[in-house]
């Protein structure tokens, strides 16, 4: 417990006037920040505020154009990731960065393998230590599993385990929970508490303000690459944080309006997914209904949504849209039947990173708007402008290459792609993953609006608040099984968790129909 | 080589000739030596052009030579029947003669060479000498698509089967891939290697494996017999399998001296190079007397066996040495 006495005159980490420019964007325009020994410092800000850029600089992934970094009062340079490791700084990247051809253990120790002479790998030592790290984060997988066989959520946990396995003095977590559900998140929090007690400093970035409230000793806010204020533990409240980030007051978060429900728009009858063919899935969603899909990481939500969208055709059962059997064998059939899916993994499935914002937005609707096979550039432009506007995508122009947008803005484009298609059934897989409060609210509003226009919405979410706040009804899954349905009145943190961990409730079955 | 270093003054006075081969092969190295000697003797400049990739390349290079202009071209057509138009195009702007392989239907002025079919028959005779008892024979060649390899092959076959000489205008060929059986000799197969020496060797090795009774191997291209020799040595069957060769690669001649190759048929490529340049130089100076009477200058075939190999080789070395010396001095001149 020697870390209980942080010396206030030389903080463990201090940055002064960091500037980072990109062609066409200034990510950081002179940011300063201090981090005290053993504290949990939360960094918040809207999408594109510069949080990740700041962290990448600290981890040696990028070099600042101007500014200074001090560690325990000494000025340092961090030119590459290896020297960040030497300084005891570990970063959990916002976007997954794993070599998916290697197994979990190799990934955790990549670049820092316990080695013998001549670079000999000590394989058993790696496996042992990796297993420990996995246990710490509560991931029940063999360390020999290849990373490419893991779902995104589990890959995220591997990333966390990787950072933990360092003997780091400061661990930076850039949205570590963005694809974790409540259960794993709590696990992570436990871990953070343990680490703090051990004197390890944490810098925590999240758009989930509830988490920040629970964890942070201090909160630093960034806005447009500038410092936008700082509050201490006592002052932390959602309103204050939002105000710092957005620069104005922010009122009610979830605004549910009562809507009249239409006929059944989407129905799954005895649906069997390729990964869990032993469980039949049955549910109905009515037009204008917003249904949440909850579950732990790996519960099979993504799998089911992919099935509904025809990406991985169902191995059994039927999918009905407006009472018609459509059971799509591929996405084209799904789209034709009026089903759209905004996928979870935006880097690999949602976007074509090297293409422009505009080209990404119009990709699904090109076919509809075509002019005998030719591009209809006029319609395309109108659609793009409309969507950039509707989703308030922060971009210089629609010609910007999308990989240079911040994560949140990228996510807006993913949603925008599908809203342009006027779907009957909208499937959203983690629609607010990694996006800021403002954008989140816009997306919620959009969902409300679409629902009131008669679109049936099924959204998978790992964020409990989102299920509690948005859903008219909730479906809960556990290991590929639909463990229950909760009506609006039944949705509560406990009831969702109960079903998500596999404890079936007697009442849930009766209310389901 | 006679590369134009850009100064231009010297080269514009001298007569410019081009000697185009049908590929890259040691055979042509000897021919180039003849070209170099004649260059000196007749005070002309002649570029030796070896197209690496067959007909297409030959056409491309010929076009480029015509584009920059020459006073005469000697060409060895890869596919005479189908290159008539191309050769005629060249005839329209300059003097064209053929060497090694003729294009009789074209407007070329004359042909220097000998008949590959005859050479084939000579090789057949060598085989008969080496294997008076008869036996199984394999043929090896770079590419069978070329006229010269087809004629050589057919010459050997006809000789071994004691058939009468065929007319070249309408050569009847035995199909590839089936054994051709005569009274004494059986020609098992003809294997091609696409000019890859390593394939030539592995083809020979595989033939030794596949045909335990193999008695003779004939290499139709210069590098084939040495490759066969390597394989025979590896199998420990020197003397057991007789080898007959074409052309005069060092390894072949050494093999004849050692007694591991029975003999070779030389077309004297040096003479091709020499006479091509001599005739073209004459024509460029409007001297028609250099032309052979019938339009065909026959270069005699030389059969090299153990008894005459040493003198043949010595002479060859002298010729090549002269050619090389001429070339070297030229290069040093250029460098200055």
């Amino acid at each position, binding site marked *: 417990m020697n870390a209980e006495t942080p010396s206030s005159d030389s903080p463990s980490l201090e940055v002064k006037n960091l500037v980072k420019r990109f062609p066409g964007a200034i990510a950081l325009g002179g940011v300063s920040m201090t981090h005290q020994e053993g504290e949990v410092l939360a960094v918040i800000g809207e999408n594109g505020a510069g949080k990740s850029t700041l962290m990448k600089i600290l981890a040696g992934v990028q070099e600042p154009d101007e500014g200074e970094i001090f560690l325990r009062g000494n000025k340092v340079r961090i030119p590459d990731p290896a020297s960040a490791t030497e300084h005891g700084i570990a970063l959990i990247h916002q976007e997954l960065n794993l070599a998916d051809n290697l197994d979990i253990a190799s990934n955790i120790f990549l670049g820092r393998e316990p080695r013998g002479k001549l670079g000999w790998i000590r394989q058993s030592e790696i496996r042992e230590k990796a297993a420990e790290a996995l246990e710490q984060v509560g991931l029940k997988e063999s360390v020999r599993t290849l990373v490419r066989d893991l779902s995104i959520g589990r890959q995220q946990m591997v990333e966390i385990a990787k950072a933990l396995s360092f003997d780091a003095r400061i661990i930076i977590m850039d949205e570590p929970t963005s694809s974790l559900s409540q259960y794993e998140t709590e696990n992570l929090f436990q871990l953070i508490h343990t680490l703090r007690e051990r004197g390890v400093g944490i810098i925590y970035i999240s758009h989930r303000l509830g988490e920040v409230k629970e964890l942070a000793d201090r909160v630093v806010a960034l806005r447009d690459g500038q410092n936008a204020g700082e509050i201490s533990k006592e002052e932390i409240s959602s309103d204050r944080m939002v105000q710092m980030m957005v620069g104005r007051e922010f009122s009610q978060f979830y605004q549910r309006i009562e809507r009249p429900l239409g006929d059944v728009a989407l129905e799954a009858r005895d649906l069997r997914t390729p990964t869990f063919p032993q469980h039949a899935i049955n549910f109905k969603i009515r037009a204008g209904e917003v249904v949440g899909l909850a579950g732990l990481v790996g519960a099979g939500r993504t799998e089911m949504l992919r099935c509904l969208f025809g990406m991985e055709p169902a191995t059994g059962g039927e999918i009905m849209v407006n009472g018609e059997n459509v059971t799509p064998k*591929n996405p084209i059939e799904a789209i034709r039947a009026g089903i759209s899916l905004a996928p979870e993994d935006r880097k*690999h499935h949602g976007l074509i990173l090297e293409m422009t914002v505009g*080209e990404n937005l119009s990709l699904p609707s*090109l076919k509809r708007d075509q002019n005998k096979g*030719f*591009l209809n550039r006029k319609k395309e432009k109108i659609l793009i402008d409309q969507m950039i506007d509707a989703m308030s995508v922060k971009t210089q122009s629609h010609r910007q290459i999308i990989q240079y947008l911040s994560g949140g803005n990228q996510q807006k484009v993913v949603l925008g792609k599908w809203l342009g298609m006027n779907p009957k059934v909208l499937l959203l897989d983690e629609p607010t993953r990694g996006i800021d409060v403002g954008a989140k609210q816009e997306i919620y509003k959009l969902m409300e609006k679409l629902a009131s226009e008669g679109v049936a919405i099924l959204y998978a979410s790992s964020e409990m608040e989102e299920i509690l706040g948005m859903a008219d009804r909730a479906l809960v899954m556990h290991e590929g099984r639909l463990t229950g349905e909760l009506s609006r009145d039944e949705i509560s943190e406990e009831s969702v968790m109960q079903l998500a961990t596999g404890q079936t409730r007697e009442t849930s079955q009766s209310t389901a129909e | 080589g006679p590369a134009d270093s850009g100064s231009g003054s010297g080269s514009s006075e001298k007569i410019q000739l081009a000697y185009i081969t049908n590929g890259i092969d040691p055979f042509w190295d000897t021919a180039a030596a003849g070209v170099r000697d004649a260059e000196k003797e007749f005070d002309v400049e002649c570029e030796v052009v070896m197209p690496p990739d067959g007909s297409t390349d030959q056409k491309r290079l010929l076009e480029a030579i015509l584009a920059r202009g020459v006073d005469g071209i000697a060409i060895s057509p*890869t596919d005479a029947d189908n290159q008539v138009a191309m050769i005629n195009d060249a005839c329209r702007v300059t003097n064209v003669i053929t060497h090694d392989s003729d294009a009789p239907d074209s407007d070329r002025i004359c042909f220097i060479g000998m008949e590959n079919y005859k050479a084939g028959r000579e090789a057949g005779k060598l085989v008969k000498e080496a294997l008076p008892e008869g036996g199984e024979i394999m043929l090896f060649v770079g590419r*069978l698509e*070329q006229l010269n390899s087809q004629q050589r092959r057919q010459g050997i076959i006809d000789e071994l089967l004691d058939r009468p000489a065929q007319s070249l205008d309408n050569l009847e060929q035995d199909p590839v891939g089936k054994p051709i059986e005569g009274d004494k000799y059986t020609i098992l197969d003809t294997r091609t290697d696409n000019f890859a020496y390593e394939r030539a060797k592995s083809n020979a090795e595989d033939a030794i494996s596949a045909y335990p009774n193999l008695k003779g191997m004939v290499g139709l291209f210069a590098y084939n017999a040495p490759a066969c020799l390597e394989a025979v040595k590896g199998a420990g069957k020197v003397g057991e399998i007789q080898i007959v060769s074409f052309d005069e690669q060092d390894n072949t001649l050494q093999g004849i001296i050692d007694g591991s190759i029975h003999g070779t048929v030389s077309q004297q490529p040096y003479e091709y190079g020499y006479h091509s340049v001599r005739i073209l130089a004459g024509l460029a100076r409007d001297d028609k007397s250099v032309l052979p009477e019938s339009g065909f200058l026959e270069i005699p075939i030389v059969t090299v066996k153990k008894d005459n190999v040493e003198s043949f080789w010595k002479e060859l070395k002298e010729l090549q040495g002269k050619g090389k010396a001429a070339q070297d001095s030229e290069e040093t001149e250029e460098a200055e």
Partner: protein
Amino acid sequence: MKKILGILGLLIFVCVFTAIKSPSFLSAYNMENTLRWTSLFGVISIGVAFVIITGGIDLSIGSVIGLSGTTLAYTLSVKGWSPYLVIPMILICSMCIGLFHGLLITRLKLQPFVVTLCGLLLYRGISRYITNDQSQGFGSGFQGLRQLAVGKVAIPFVEGFMIPVPCFLLLGIAIVAGIFLNSTIYGRYLLALGRNEMAAKYSGIQTERMTLLAYVVCSTLAGLGGILFALDVNSVQPAGLGEFYELYAIAAAVLGGCSLRGGEGSILGVIIGAAVLRVLYNAINILRIPTHLEFAIIGSVILAGVIVDELVKRYAARRRAIRSASQE
């Protein structure tokens, strides 16, 4: 557009250099020849560019060229079939070859490299088998048909210089390909799936069908190229025609701005790429550089060109960054 500038610069440099060194480079005869060869290689390079844009590769085109050229000469001269029957037949067969590759790649998920490498061997073998390894040709017949490859068209009011017929073919194909790639939804689909096939699939694009299309286009153009090469050279060696052309075509495409990672490419660039290669070959001969230096020179000129291009781009990017920083 920017990607083309480098290669265009190289082309201009080589042309100007050669023209200064030797006046015969600009002679009508030489220009016509160079244009003709560029057109022939341009046609096959455009095909290969389609495949490269999808992130694939086609090593078989040299052999497809060989097969189509051989079949043409064989059926016309030896079998005496009608060209009106043979040419469509060859094009349809080439199309089927592309379809075959495409199906193996999209349905069985085999690696394009492996599939087309097997194709390289297989079609070469078939050409040699059909003709029993004998050279084929048209002799002095089929003069009318051969105009497709060797014909020239006079330009009104210009004397001495005529445009080779293959140029028009290339022009037509390039325009269609350019419009397809840039102005139709399918072109956009190709570019998208070349970059990220999964994301394209999630956007409702029938990626398999588009990939199939690219391979079909590639093989068909190779088949057409084979016809033209055979008609041009007049002499077809079943074991030789088209050998190594896959590398030339791929090189032309890559020099012209296609990335082998997929998703990038411009038709104009590809044609310029093909032109650079042809002009280099021509220049070497025109400048009387010995043939055995050919490869060394082409290799080093291209390498130097690519390196200079990269350095210039970096320099420009640095300048731009400094300028934009000082403005703010």
